[in-house]
């Protein structure tokens, strides 16, 4: 009738719970609480802990009884009984409940079974305790008699009121001992565990979805930024116009387009890994193929140079940064300027920074306000990846072009991507 709409995903009993689900369980002796309540590891850990405490208590009792009855045999006997009875009391319910949990019944049935198991455990241990106590009493009494010792005074005549109070305290004590000791607290943890686990499970699902979305947004962003549709269509327009007028030039432009797409598109494939971990060499290649294409399209008005030591090409370098600067140089520097223009991309390394500059001799920056997102994205990416350790600087002399510089901190060498066959 009130079956849950979907069976809640279950989790393994023999493995520890995710950290977010835990309450306590950080100390050595409470480590068993890192496992699901009423699971094998949990029961073992709890039994060891409880039995150790009870054993200390039993040892003290054994010594006390042995000393007062002047018979350490009797003391040990009552101590052992106490150990057995209390351990049974502490573990009978939880052990039964653990047995129930491993049946892996549906949620509602399991809950009922667990509660019943704990109650049965309490009943069993009550009987066992009663039997053990009366047995120990008899033995101790016999020991006293054989020593001709007077029995410890047991007040025979106690006023009714005091008896009622004593009885109540006794009863409350029993409830507390059996309830808490015998699995009451564990029962409470058991009921909240499922909820905590589900909450955690949902939170994780949401986080995973969010991450997946971010990842695909990033891929889409890179695709759009690297192969800007405007640029692609414009290049196709160029090729279309050239096919009849100058087939050789059309071929050269198509080849340059193919090179450019080859240098950008592989990054989008390999699981998006290339988006996050690319090298300076790859990024410079993208800039070079873009500039070559623009040079062809602009009819030789554009010239360019890429200057970087071969050794620097293997350095890790985030995608999108350089091509954004190069596109800006073309779009806002060279294109609006009549006559020839030049773009130079230069990579240099000093003691602790990798500096790449993109210099153009276009129209330069006009003082004023800008709302362009491209450069804002570059800054954002730098901040996200390097905190305050990376910087983007843009300087310009109006009419003489712009110098844009990205300064990256040198990464730890192990993150450097070695080119194939670099190892001997």
């Amino acid at each position: 009738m009130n079956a849950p709409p979907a069976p809640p995903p279950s989790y393994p009993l023999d493995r520890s719970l995710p950290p977010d689900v835990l309450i306590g369980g950080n100390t050595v002796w409470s480590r068993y609480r890192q496992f699901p309540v009423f699971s094998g590891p949990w029961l073992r850990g709890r039994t060891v802990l409880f039995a150790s405490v009870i054993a200390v208590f039993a040892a003290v009792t054994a010594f006390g009884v042995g000393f007062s009855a002047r018979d350490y045999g009797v003391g040990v006997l009552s101590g052992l009984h106490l150990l057995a009875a209390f351990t049974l009391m502490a573990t009978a319910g939880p052990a039964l409940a653990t047995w129930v949990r491993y049946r892996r019944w549906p949620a509602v049935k399991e809950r009922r079974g667990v509660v019943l198991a704990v109650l049965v455990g309490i009943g069993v241990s009550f009987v066992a305790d009663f039997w053990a106590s009366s047995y120990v009493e008899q033995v101790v009494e016999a020991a006293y008699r054989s020593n001709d010792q007077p029995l410890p005074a047991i007040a025979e005549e106690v006023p009714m009121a005091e008896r009622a109070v004593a009885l109540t305290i006794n009863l409350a004590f029993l409830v507390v001992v059996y309830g808490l000791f015998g699995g009451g607290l564990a029962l409470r943890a058991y009921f909240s565990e499922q909820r905590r686990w589900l909450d955690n499970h949902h939170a994780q699902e949401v986080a995973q979805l969010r991450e997946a979305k971010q990842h695909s947004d990033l891929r889409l962003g890179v695709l759009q930024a690297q192969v800007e549709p405007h640029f692609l269509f414009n290049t196709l327009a160029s090729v279309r116009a050239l096919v009849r007028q100058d087939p050789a030039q059309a071929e050269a432009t198509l080849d340059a387009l193919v090179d450019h797409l080859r240098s950008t598109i592989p990054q989008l494939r390999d699981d998006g890994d290339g988006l996050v971990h690319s090298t300076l060499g790859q990024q410079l290649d993208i800039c070079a193929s873009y500039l070559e294409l623009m040079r062809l399209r602009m009819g030789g008005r554009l010239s360019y140079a890429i200057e970087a030591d071969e050794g620097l090409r293997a350095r890790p370098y985030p995608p999108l940064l350089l091509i954004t600067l190069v596109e800006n140089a073309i779009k806002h520097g060279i294109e609006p300027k009549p006559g020839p223009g030049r773009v130079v991309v230069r990579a240099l390394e000093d003691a602790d920074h990798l500096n790449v500059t993109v210099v153009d001799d276009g129209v330069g920056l006009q003082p004023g306000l800008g709302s362009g997102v491209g450069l804002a994205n570059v800054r954002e990416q730098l901040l996200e990846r390097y905190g305050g350790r990376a910087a983007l600087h843009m300087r310009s002399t109006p009419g003489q072009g712009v110098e844009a510089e990205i300064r990256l901190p040198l990464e730890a060498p192990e993150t450097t991507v070695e080119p194939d066959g670099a190892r001997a």
Partner: protein
Amino acid sequence: MTSSGLVAIVAEDEAPQRAALLSMLADAWPELESVTACDDGVAALQAVAELRPAVAFLDIRMPGVSGLDVARAVVAAGGLVVFTTAYDEYAIRAFEAGAVDYLLKPVQPVHLARAVGRLRERLATRDDGDLQARVDELEAALRPRGDRQVRWISASVGDSVRMIGIDEVLYFQAQDKYVRVVTGEAEAVIRTPLKDLLAGLDPDTFWQVHRGVVVRVAAIDRVRKDELGKWHLCLRGRGESLPVSGAFLHRFRGM
């Protein structure tokens, strides 16, 4: 109709595309008396002034003067405009809304023929509407997208210009006809009035605290009153203090 007397211009900075458009246009519209090709915006403006063309095919992005500026001149001289563009969804939306005609690159003969058909119709009826207003609308739509949020400030430092990301700026302070832009490490000046600047700033990030001072909220350390009863504001980790006027004091209540 022997000589139509119709003069057209084609402005396109890429030579092959220019030549292709010219040859396609010759096929699609043989009645045109002359078609003048221009390789940048400056040449196009000159051609408009000299020829007063009835029709202009204009690339939007061109060296020198943008296609929009050329369009303004064409419309002022009583001509019609067709823009050519590769891909720009914002622009296309603006074209469609403003009924300024456009062609998508690569230009294909069918599309050109259709555009020519529309031009002929409009030339015949002279049903122009307010073309100047349409170009204005278009320009507004093509201006850096949407929000007008200031992300960059190109400010002068000596005789060069430096681009400063808005998130670097600690405060702006008006001084004579300039506004000082102060960051953690440097300062520069712009001529943009503080009022215009404020319009593009996030009101939760930057507060105006004085007629001439706009400050980054996160950089404010404390506000104090001096012996003369005037309020000042101290910035986190910096020596200078900035004036706060009474009219803006309410922002600090309950801070």
